[in-house]
């Protein structure tokens, strides 16, 4: 009994591709894609499908309008804001530097959708707080971790890091994993020693 010599990278038909949890996987048949393209011909940029997941990329200034349209259109009704996050695309492309990723879910239609927009340093993304109360902390976290400014956010301050954190935004790709400097505990002169030793095995 031996295992097959070479294994396929990915099964030909993955069970994940046909769930329809994100609507039709053919972009042309997807109602959200069609309607957004009709309604925002200028802002609509592209649609990407991976596995069963449908991602719409729109222009940055129109993000709020698009999301509001997706939320209120009677055929779409993506009324649940699942998540807002960002991806630092520093190593993947030239510009813009970040992608802001909005995950939407329609409770009545039981479908998800992902909306993306690119943003560079110094640019502002329209905040979603006016349409989704739940965007408040999610956008604050984005600001905290990436330094993305959300225009129209009522209370944009750091949320997970201390308010006086002055070392930038840690989820950026150019932020070193261990931070920029050693943390010195107040009242102590030298930083806590960094443990660099090897693992010790218990003796015989």
């Amino acid at each position, binding site marked *: 009994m031996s295992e097959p010599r070479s294994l396929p990278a990915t099964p030909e038909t993955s069970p994940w591709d046909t769930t329809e949890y994100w609507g039709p996987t053919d972009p042309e048949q997807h109602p959200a894609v069609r309607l957004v393209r009709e309604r925002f011909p200028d802002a609509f940029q592209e649609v990407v499908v991976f596995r069963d997941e449908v991602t719409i990329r729109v222009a940055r200034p129109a993000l709020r309008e698009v999301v509001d349209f997706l939320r209120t259109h009677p055929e779409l009704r993506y009324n649940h804001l699942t998540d807002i996050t960002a991806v630092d695309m520093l190593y993947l492309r030239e510009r813009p530097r970040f992608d802001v990723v909005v995950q939407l879910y329609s409770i009545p239609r*039981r479908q998800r959708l992902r909306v993306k927009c690119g943003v560079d340093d110094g640019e502002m993304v329209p905040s979603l*707080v006016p349409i*989704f*109360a739940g965007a408040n902390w999610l956008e604050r976290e984005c600001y905290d971790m990436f330094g993305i400014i959300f225009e129209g956010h*009522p209370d944009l301050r750091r949320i997970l890091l201390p308010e006086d954190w002055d070392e930038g935004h840690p989820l950026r790709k150019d932020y070193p994993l261990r931070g920029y400097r050693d943390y010195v505990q107040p009242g102590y002169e030298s930083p806590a020693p960094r443990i660099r030793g090897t693992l010790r095995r218990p003796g015989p």
Partner: protein
Amino acid sequence: MTVQVLVFWLLALVAILGALGVVAARNPIHSAIGLVLSFLNVAAIYLIARAEFLAVVQVIVYAGAVIVLVVFVTMLVHPDDLPEFHGRRPLRIATGLVLGLALLAEVSAAILAHGLRGTPGPWTDDTIAAVGGNTRALGQVLYSDFMLAIQLTALLLLAATIGAIALARPEAVSERLAAARRVMTISLAHPRGLDQPALPAALPEPQNGRVKEAGGGRPIVLARTADEFTEQPAWGEWRAR
């Protein structure tokens, strides 16, 4: 007798010291403590005079209730709202002096008129014992001879209570709360503007889900499929809040 006199002087001294503390202390709480001290010693003096009931009532009412309320209010008041104790206030000093002198004159006049021991009344040890203790005697006097005065006092206190409640205006708190709520809800992006009309009451339509009595007089709905209660929540008694 000598022991009693000694104890009396001691109690009187502490009572006066406490009273002085009330005036002298800067901290209002310390003043209140001084007042309690004074009251307790006065109660002890009553005890020496064999007026046990009066002594205990003095402790319950004055030390136990009145001063407790004074302390309560003092703790509630923000330190900035307390009157300034520093600096000279000529008007206040003058008023205090005049009132103090008037009181002194009054007490002196009383002492001069009747002597330090005062005039003995109808209630002696024997008459009190005949009635059956000073509690009983006090009750008899209060609720027969001074009935009218007692009732009037009670009426006055009731009126004062009602007046105090009216002055304190419980709705002041709710007004402030409503204002704060407006600020808070707006700032945190209240999903439904505060002034918007509430949605109409919508009782759960029995779709596929079954209603289960969960306890506490409260039903919960068990949804069987994923499609029910997504358009129309299982939400009853909207205005229950």
